[in-house]
């Protein structure tokens, strides 16, 4: 089979993407613009409300903080796992991915038990007399971030371990001989080389965190809505499908814009032409 006719093999997958991704998107988008009083009326209405801006801000902040924490926690762990022998690395990778095998609802209920007023953390702090009354952790933004970090850390580690394993240790040795101390080597030599892996990890975690539903629903409660829970509320509780669609499209735009920014930052770190 030559190259030209091989292209036809892509048709089923292409059709799949077209039918199941783009058509529904267009289906969602079109009604939001069908207004007698203006093309962008629904969007303008949505963006006029300060409450909605609060939700957008919270969604963005939670995703951003989650990505940062996951990156800071994931990088050292990945550097350690990536430098192990292949067999050890495979076992560790499996252990890292293990939490992902549990059901999301079950996992989040576990966090309710840990974070609640009668939870392990409060009981522990009370027993040590560090606090006088239980802290409000559950049903706050912090609770959503904790749950998201737990959920997405394996994804970040998984996308970094491969890049770490491919690093040539001699490059770090060369840096050391040229007078670079270990911290300087980490920031100027190791992290820039990992930029493509870090970018992939950040995009996956950011997109996941922006659109996560179960975690903010269970750990954030009704007073700490994010865009995804707001969509659910609009569609399922209020039956306002058009508004839900507006929010969905705004969510997509914010996500896409954020990824573009991440890409720029990554290119600043690693300017190799192959990464262009």
């Amino acid at each position, binding site marked *: 089979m030559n190259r030209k006719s091989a292209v036809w093999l892509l048709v089923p997958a292409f059709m799949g993407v077209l039918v199941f991704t783009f058509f529904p998107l267009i289906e969602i988008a079109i009604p939001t613009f069908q207004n007698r009083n203006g093309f962008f009326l629904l969007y303008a209405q949505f963006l006029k409300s300060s409450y909605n801006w609060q939700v957008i801000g919270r969604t963005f902040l939670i995703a951003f903080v989650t990505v940062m924490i996951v990156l800071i926690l994931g990088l050292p762990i990945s550097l350690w796992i990536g430098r192990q022998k292949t067999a050890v690395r495979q076992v560790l990778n499996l252990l890292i991915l293990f939490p992902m095998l549990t059901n999301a609802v079950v996992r989040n209920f576990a966090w309710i038990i840990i974070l609640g007023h009668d939870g392990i953390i409060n009981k522990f702090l009370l027993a040590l007399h560090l606090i006088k009354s239980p802290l409000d952790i559950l049903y706050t933004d912090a609770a959503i971030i904790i749950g998201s970090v737990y959920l997405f850390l394996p994804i970040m580690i998984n996308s970094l371990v491969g890049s770490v394993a491919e690093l040539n240790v001699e490059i770090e*040795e*060369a*840096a*050391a*001989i*040229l007078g670079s101390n270990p911290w300087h080597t980490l920031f100027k030599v190791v992290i820039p080389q990992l930029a493509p892996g870090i970018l992939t990890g950040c995009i996956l975690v950011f997109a996941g965190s922006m659109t996560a539903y179960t975690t903010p629903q269970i750990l954030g409660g009704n007073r700490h809505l994010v865009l995804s829970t707001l969509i659910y509320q609009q569609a399922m509780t209020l039956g306002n499908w058009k508004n839900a669609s507006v929010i969905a499209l705004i969510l997509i735009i914010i996500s896409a814009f954020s990824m573009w920014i991440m890409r720029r930052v990554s290119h600043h770190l690693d300017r190799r032409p192959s990464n262009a």
Partner: protein
Amino acid sequence: MADLEVQNLAKSYDGKTKVLKDISFSVKNGEFVSILGPSGCGKTTTLRIIAGLIPETSGQVLVDNKDITKVPVYKRNFGMVFQSYALFPHLSVFENVAFGLKTRKIAKSEIKEKVAAMLELTGLSDLADKFPAQLSGGQQQRVSLARALIIDPELLLMDEPLSNLDAKLRLKMREEICRLQKKMKMTVLFVTHDQQECFAISDKVLIMKQGHIDQFDTPQTIFHHPRTEYVARFIGYDNFVPVSPNSCQDNYHVKAGETVLTTTEDCLNAKVLTIRPENIVLDLKEATQNTFDGKIINREYLGQSFKYTVESKLGEFKVEEARQKMRSSGDEVTLTLPAKHLHPLSE
């Protein structure tokens, strides 16, 4: 550039088997010293301990009589060229070369000036903005060399820097390294497994065998007076004649089987005699000593000469003969081993 002294260096990775056993040698300012040996003999380990990349088990490394054994690698002022080049893939050629200056907190304008001069010296000026992945092997090697030299290192360490290049380029880079070494009066420690390469460029050669030094001398001395059978084999002595123990009669005559062989060197403790294939003479008419009959059993054409395998009562001999008159398998010949080329070895 500076003097280097290594004292009683030993290394064990697992606490049991010693990779290095009591290595001691010194390199003087401006000297080019090669460490030669097969893979696994400990030559790279020695280099890496000197660089500070791995800790020693015991022993000292001194630079200009100062003990630097416990100084961390990034505080030693050495340059190193790796077999894999180990260039920073995310930095341009210019930035790769500038790296060592940046860590030393040198002013930007000075960095620019110095890097430009170094790129000029190594013939890389046109490639300053390229990335390592866009360069050929030889160009990468040059960047790696420029990067190591720009910090004006006290010592330049090279770990098989030429082994990833093709034969023609290897020769060219070899000459270039020589030229730079002489020009900048560098102290160089060069690790290789290629005997020709290291004899061509070194002031002194250190031959290692299983974690210890077998011989440390100038290439000429090693070539003409190998100290052990191991060294002799490494540098192309193909013929080894075992001699009867305690058969040395008057320090210059020794028995191999029933044959008495004459040497010009003291053979009192000799266990084996060795001679290079090109030093054996076939059918020498006026021969009076070290001469016996043989029969050719194999022939190889080497271009400049023929290499024969000759069977005799003292075993098989490899003989290289420049004469273009070809001999054939089965020919009867007389072998003569000139006494001045016959070296007694005690190990």
